[in-house]
């Protein structure tokens, strides 16, 4: 499966939500990182076929998405950013309804629902009304519906929002196993989710793709740009106004500050091992449009 996004642009009135976005995806998990309002959800909705791009095209294995309908939709699993449920539906009703929407029939549907409910830890609650579910349970039900048709392309918009750490780890493991021969696009604010399972990350800002690299590449590129230095709280208050700080840890009566910068910030600064979070911070503090 090869998914090509070619010069996708989207305008809402005078607002340019996406501006000539292009990248390619093959099997594996791809992270989509970007600040709020960067255009991630718009891009995801275009890929899911629920929003029309103003220009550009989505190409699947060399064919335009529109020419591949309805096969494309049968291969697609989608979890939108926000999802509520019908007040009168139980979890089971909801999954059966989505299965019917996806054109799934027969006993295999029940088996699939049972298996997914177990994987997202909802077996005990499947007969309860969805409206009584907690935020995390609703999210897990949303993940289960996206996986009902064993999609070849799985598009997840903020899938781990509202999940507790244990649920997030379970979700990451589920997606890792699932993605072996499939394409997964994961849009999130939580960098550690992308760091754990994505093979490549697309960084998007102001409707444009900044970079698309393997996660290791992002991290490697940060070598010599992450520093640790100690200072007092009063010094930190002044320092944080003109430096990019990715973390602060109390260390005795001083603070250990993790600084992301191109040059050694102070003679006593010690180089630190960079992470994807540092790279994210660096990329989004650095305006590539000016390059």
């Amino acid at each position, binding site marked *: 499966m090869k998914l090509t996004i070619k010069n996708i642009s989207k305008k*809402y009135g005078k607002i340019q939500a996406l501006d000539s976005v292009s990248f390619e995806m093959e099997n594996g998990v791809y992270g989509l990182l970007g600040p709020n309002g960067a255009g991630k959800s718009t891009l995801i*909705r275009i890929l*899911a*076929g*629920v*929003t*029309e791009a103003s220009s550009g095209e989505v190409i699947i294995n060399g064919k335009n998405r529109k020419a591949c309908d*309805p096969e494309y*939709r*049968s291969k*697609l699993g*989608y979890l*939108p950013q*926000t*999802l*509520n*449920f*019908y*007040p*009168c*539906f139980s979890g089971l*009703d909801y999954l*059966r*309804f*989505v299965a*019917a*929407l*996806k*054109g799934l029939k027969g006993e295999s549907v029940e088996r699939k629902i049972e298996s997914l409910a177990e994987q997202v830890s909802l077996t005990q609650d499947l007969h309860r009304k969805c409206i009584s579910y907690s935020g995390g349970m609703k999210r897990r039900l949303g993940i289960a*519906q996206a996986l009902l048709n064993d999609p070849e392309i799985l598009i997840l918009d903020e899938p781990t929002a509202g999940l507790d750490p244990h649920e997030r780890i379970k979700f990451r493991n589920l997606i890792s196993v699932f993605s072996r021969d499939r394409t997964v696009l994961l849009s999130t604010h939580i960098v550690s989710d992308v760091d754990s399972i994505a093979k490549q990350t697309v960084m998007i800002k102001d409707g444009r793709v900044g970079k698309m690299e393997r996660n290791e590449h992002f991290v490697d590129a940060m070598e010599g740009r992450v520093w640790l230095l100690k200072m007092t709280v009063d010094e930190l208050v002044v320092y944080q106004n003109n430096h990019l700080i990715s973390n602060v840890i109390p260390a005795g009566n001083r603070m250990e500050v993790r600084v992301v910068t191109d040059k050694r910030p102070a003679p006593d600064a010690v180089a630190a091992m960079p992470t994807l979070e540092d790279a994210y911070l660096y990329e989004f503090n650095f305006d590539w449009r000016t390059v």
Partner: protein
Amino acid sequence: MILFQYEMKKLLFNKSRIILLAVIFIICMLMGLLSAEGSLALRKSADYSEYIRLVSENTGGFNPEQFAKSKAISEATEVEYRKGNEDGFYMYLHRNPVQKFHNDYTKFGKRVHEYWNGPEYQDEANILGIYPIQEKLKELSGKTGTNEYRYYKKRLDTELSLGEPVFRNTLFWDNFSLAFDPSRVGFLLLMFLAFIISPVFTQEVQTDMDSIILCSVKGRREIVTAKLLSVCMTSAILTAVFFSGMFIGNYIFNGDINGFDAPARCFAGFTWTTLDMTVGGVAMLGVLWLIPVTMAFGLAMGLISAKSKNQTATFGLGVAMILTLSLFGFLRDDLKKMLGPLADFNYVAISIYGSVFGGVKVYNVFGKAVSYGAVALAVCFALGAVAALIIYMAQKRRMVV
């Protein structure tokens, strides 16, 4: 089929909607009871057995002697008791069964007179009464090949075959006919329907399910089919609940359904109907008629729901539509003529059963005289089909913003 079942669950077969349906049934039953209030007063009256005797003795064809007697008594009663208050006079008659009989027989006598001689004020475009029609046919004797001649010839044959009106006890059906009153159908049935149908598409926007539906294989066409079928089914169920409530409410105070087999013209508002059936048949046809009418209205509400994003706005527009179309009925004839088909064939106009099937109104369709009922049925299907088509097209192009 599975999608249809789930759409029915969303729209009607869930706890809150079933409670609402039960409330609607109770309201309709109370309305039915109120319509039959006079019957209860009549049955409780000491002279009720005398009323039954008089009705039984005079059941059947016209008796001129009885008419003369009843007319004299009735006119004297009216002079004494009818002092501008229709409701008061109505209740007076029901508390005085013998007077009611004479009043009923006098009205019956006038109907017989009109059957032969036509109403006091004739519509020259559509003449009524055996003798005036025969006169008209004489006038047209030189134009036997014209549509007008053929129309009046057919009308005369129909009138003669239906025969002179007969006197029957149709107390239950007189009360039940109020269920077809425009105020009840328009303001109860259609408004309840507007409320129930309004979330059919808007709930997908409000629950953010739009995205999941639109990206699924069956989210563009099959889901619309399921929704449209659920709208039609809901309309039919609500119509059945409405009339069952009215019927049961009426039956509780009447205690019988006498007059079921009386000719159709004994049904209130159907004095000039050309339907050759019984009163019971006319009532059943009325319920059956309102099923496609409510379906067409339900589909129109579905269309508003598909175009709107908010349930309250959808319901509001539905209510505004009912009120506006109801007002058309109160317009002067010249204004109605200006509105053309919009005045006679809107959702509210075609829901008034008595005006569609109770008279002899005809329309010129490609040179042929076609009855109001037949044209209304065709319009009803056309309105439904157009609404369904637009909904399909809207869903095909629907996008999430």
